[in-house]
C-alpha cells in the first residue's frame, strides 16, 4: 500500500536537461515562472505553453508524468478559474447576468489564462524535480543560497537537513510497512471502525515509528561525528558544480523567451 507512493520523482536520464547544472536548472525554472507571470497577452502564454512542451520533449519525460503532476492541483485550478470567471468585472456589458453573477467576456479570457498559467507553472517546475536528483538539488540550493551566509543564515546546515530528510523518506516508509505488518500480525485492526477508533489504531504504529526515527537520528549523528563532521567550516566537495556551455545556452534561451514575452506585451494592445 505504502509502496505506491512515489516521492522520489526523479527519473534518471541522459538528456540535455538532465545534464544541465542543477543551479542553472533552478535559475531557469525561476525565469520560466517569471515568463509565465509577465505574459499578460494570450500570445505570450502560448509561448509559455510551447516552451513547456519543448522542455518535456527535450528531457524525454513522458506526457503521462505531466498529467500525474497536475492531478493534485486540479481543484486549485478549477477554484481560481471559477473565481475569475464569476467575479471579474469588465468594462463592457456582461455576457450573462444571473442574479448577482455577471459573466464578462474578459472574465472568461482571464479564467482561461489563469488556468493555463497555473498548469504551465506546475508542469514546468515539476520538470525540475523529474530531471534533477534530490542530492543535486540540495547541493544547488546550498550554493544559490550562499550569499545568505552573510546574514548568519545556516545555509549549509539547512541543505544538509534537507538532504538527510530526503534520504530517509524511503527508509521510513519501509519501516512503517514493517511495523504495520508486525502489528497486524498481533491482530491490530487498521482498516475498520470509526474515525476515533482508526486514530487510536495508529498509536501502535506511530510510537514505534517515532522511537526508531529518533534512534536512527541518534545513530546517524554519531556516525557523522565519527567522521569528523562539523558543519560547513572548511568543508570541500567531491563533486564541484561547474557550469558548461550547455548551461549558458539554456540561460540565453530563457532570457530570449523572456524578452519575447515582454516584446509581445508591448506590441499587442492590452486585452483586459
Amino acid at each position: 500500500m505504502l509502496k505506491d507512493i512515489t516521492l522520489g520523482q526523479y527519473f534518471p536520464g541522459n538528456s540535455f536537461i538532465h545534464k544541465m547544472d542543477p543551479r542553472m536548472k533552478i535559475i531557469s525554472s525561476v525565469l520560466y515562472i517569471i515568463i509565465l507571470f509577465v505574459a499578460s497577452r494570450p500570445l505570450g502564454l502560448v509561448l509559455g505553453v510551447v516552451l513547456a512542451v519543448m522542455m518535456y520533449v527535450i528531457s524525454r519525460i513522458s506526457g503521462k508524468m505531466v498529467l500525474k503532476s497536475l492531478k493534485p492541483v486540479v481543484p486549485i485550478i478549477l477554484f481560481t478559474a471559477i473565481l475569475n470567471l464569476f467575479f471579474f468585472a469588465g468594462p463592457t456589458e456582461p455576457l450573462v447576468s444571473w442574479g448577482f453573477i455577471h459573466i464578462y467576456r474578459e472574465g472568461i479570457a482571464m479564467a482561461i489564462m489563469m488556468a493555463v498559467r497555473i498548469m504551465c507553472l506546475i508542469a514546468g517546475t515539476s520538470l525540475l524535480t523529474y530531471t534533477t536528483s534530490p542530492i543535486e538539488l540540495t547541493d544547488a540550493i546550498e550554493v544559490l543560497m550562499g550569499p545568505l551566509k552573510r546574514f548568519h543564515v545556516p545555509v549549509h546546515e539547512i541543505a544538509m537537513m534537507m538532504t538527510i530528510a530526503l534520504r530517509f523518506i524511503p527508509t521510513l516508509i519501509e519501516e512503517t510497512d514493517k511495523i504495520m505488518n508486525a502489528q497486524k500480525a498481533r491482530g491490530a485492526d487498521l482498516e475498520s471502525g470509526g474515525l476515533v477508533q482508526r486514530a487510536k489504531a495508529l498509536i501502535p504504529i506511530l510510537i514505534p515509528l517515532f522511537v526508531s526515527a529518533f534512534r536512527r537520528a541518534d545513530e546517524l549523528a554519531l556516525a557523522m561525528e565519527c567522521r569528523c563532521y562539523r558543519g560547513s567550516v572548511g568543508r570541500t566537495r567531491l563533486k564541484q558544480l561547474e557550469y558548461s556551455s550547455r548551461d549558458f545556452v539554456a540561460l540565453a534561451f530563457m532570457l530570449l523567451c523572456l524578452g519575447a514575452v515582454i516584446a509581445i506585451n508591448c506590441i499587442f494592445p492590452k486585452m483586459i
Partner: protein
Amino acid sequence: MAVIKTEHLTHTYSEGTPFVKMAIQDVNLSIEEGEMVGVIGHTGSGKSTLIQHFNGLLKPTSGKIYIDGEDMWADTTRLRDIRFKVGLVFQYPEYQLFEETVYKDISFGPKNMGLSEEEVDRRVRQAASFVNVTEEMMHKSPFELSGGQKRRVAIAGILAMQPKVLILDEPTAGLDPKGRDRILGQIQEYQQDQKNTVLIVSHSMEDVAKFARKVLVMNQSKVFLYDDTEAVFAHAQEIEQMGLAVPQVTRVFTHLAEMGYPVDPHTYTIQAAKQQVLDLFEQQEKGGKKNA
C-alpha cells in the same frame, strides 16, 4: 492433518511494472502439526515472503494456502480469525513495542482477539513465564529494558495469543551467544510444552541442527528441500554450493569420511560426533593391542 498446506503458491512483487520480481514460485508444502521446523535459505531466497503468506499478510499471486484445513483467502472476513492461528514474530520484534508497560504490551495481541479480561491476564502471565519475563519487569516501560529482554517481551506478545503455529523470523539476530541459547531454549521448551508447530527462520545452521527436527531449505524462490534434519544435511555439498554453511561438525565429519575414517559424513550434532570419535578411539585401541 497438515496444519499448513500450500498448493502451487506463487508470489510476484510489483506485477505489471518494470520492477517485477518473482519472490516465490510453485511452493508445495505440507507442514504437520507439532513439527519443529528450521527454515533456511540465502538472503532473497523467498523465506520472508513465504512466512508472511502463512500469516495472511501477503496475498498469493496464484496458488492456495490452507491453515488447519481452511483455505485462507476463500473468505476474507475469516482472514483475521485465521491469522490468530498463526503467530508471526518478525525480525527485530523489539521495535514493535509501544505500550506504557510490558504487561500492557504483551496483552495487546490477546486483547485484539476479544478475550475476556481474566483470560487475557492468564495468557499474559503464562507467556511471560515461558520467556522468563519476571513480575518486576511486567510493570516497567518496555523502553527501559535491555535488548535481549525487549526481544523476549516481544516474543511473549505473540505467545500470549496462543497460536497453533508459531513462526519466528531470525529470533536470535543481533544477540550474544548467551542470549541466543536462552531464547532458543525457551522456544524449544514452549514447543515441547504446548505441542505446537514452530517454524524458525535462521541463518545459523548450528542453531537449526540443534533444535529442528525438520528443515526447509529455500533456494532461488523455490523449495529446495523439506525433510528430516538428518536427511537434509546429507545434502551438505549442495547446501554449501548455495552459499549456506552446514554446521561445522558436519563439515569436519564429511572431511573425515573422505579421508577414509569409518564415520557418518552426515553427523550434525555434537553428541553424535562425540560418540563416533570415542568409538573410533576405542576401536583403534583394541586394534593397537592386537598388533602388540
